[in-house]
């Protein structure tokens, strides 16, 4: 990691209760860099760098406690986010529904933000294709925070999207 340009990106992880947001971020950042949890606000800030062909991207990831998500996403969480990860639980289809409603509630406010939909807990499905284009035109990726399958790839993909947009 030498001469490459380093750029910074803020990522926000959203999704309903217990879909695996924290597990995904932990899997990705495990043993890497630092972690600050701010209990009064219920937000955890983590960082990890991703090296792409042209640049190094320092990802600062905001993982929000469930109480604050979706129904009332504070404006200041959204503002300045370069990428949003919308997580749902593949074994609970209703969580996808909620997620899609969530997207529509703030998509207008963030025209230049890269958004990726993540179906998590793929290890619990018999067979899951790891990627689809969903009907909203958003990219949908399937992961397992438990086995680690597709987790790094998903973050890398989003990192790339944030520098393209």
């Amino acid at each position, binding site marked *: 990691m030498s001469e490459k340009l380093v*750029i910074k*990106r803020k990522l926000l992880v959203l999704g309903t209760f217990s879909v695996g947001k924290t597990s995904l971020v932990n899997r990705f950042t495990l043993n890497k*860099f630092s972690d*600050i949890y701010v209990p009064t*606000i219920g*937000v955890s800030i983590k960082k990890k760098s991703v090296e792409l062909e042209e640049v190094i991207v320092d990802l600062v990831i905001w993982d929000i406690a469930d109480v604050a998500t979706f129904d009332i996403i*504070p*404006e*200041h969480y959204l*503002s300045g986010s370069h990428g949003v990860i919308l997580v749902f639980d593949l074994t609970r289809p209703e969580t996808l529904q909620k997620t899609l409603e969530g997207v529509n509630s703030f998509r207008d406010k963030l025209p230049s933000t890269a958004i990726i939909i993540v179906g998590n807990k793929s290890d619990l499905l018999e067979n899951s294709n790891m990627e689809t284009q969903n009907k909203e035109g958003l990219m949908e990726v399937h992961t397992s925070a438990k086995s680690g399958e597709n987790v790094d790839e998903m973050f890398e993909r989003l990192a790339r999207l944030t520098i393209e947009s």
Partner: protein
Amino acid sequence: MIETLYPLLGSMMKKAMLNQVRVINEKIERTANQVFTLGFWKSKFKSLITGIDHSEVYFQELYQSKIEDVFVIQKGSGLLIAKYKLEDTIADRDTIAGALEAIKGFAESVIGKNSIELEKIDYGEYNILLHNYHKFYFAVLCSGVVGNHFIQDVNEKIVNYASEYLQEIPTQVNSLNFKDNSENLQKYF
């Protein structure tokens, strides 16, 4: 890891910047009036010379205030634009900057966005002074007891730095041209 280094990061933030300082100030004033120590008279003398409020001199000498670090943080994203110390000796500063932004945003949304911007965060044994500009703000991490005079001093440094470099402070951390401004910052603090 960082939780043990910065144990009270999440502690409640105080809207009124000077209230706490004043309370301690008064306590010291009271104690000082009762205890006629040599230190007390020394600081009294110094206060006569410098014109700084006596109790402030006294307690600043008791609890030497010091700038530990300076962050320049982009509003909204919480991304770090520049920092005073080049290496991460205490903790990762990108993460700290994010946490500060989260606290600031939270406090301001509770207080009411447009009315006021947070000027100080209590942070365990540290005080963090915030100095707001349009697209970014300075967060100055201070140890010791932070008095009025010290705050003025910090603000002066910030204004001096900003008057020289305001145009160069990159407000677009998200642009590919982002250039860290830390070296310039170091000349002023």
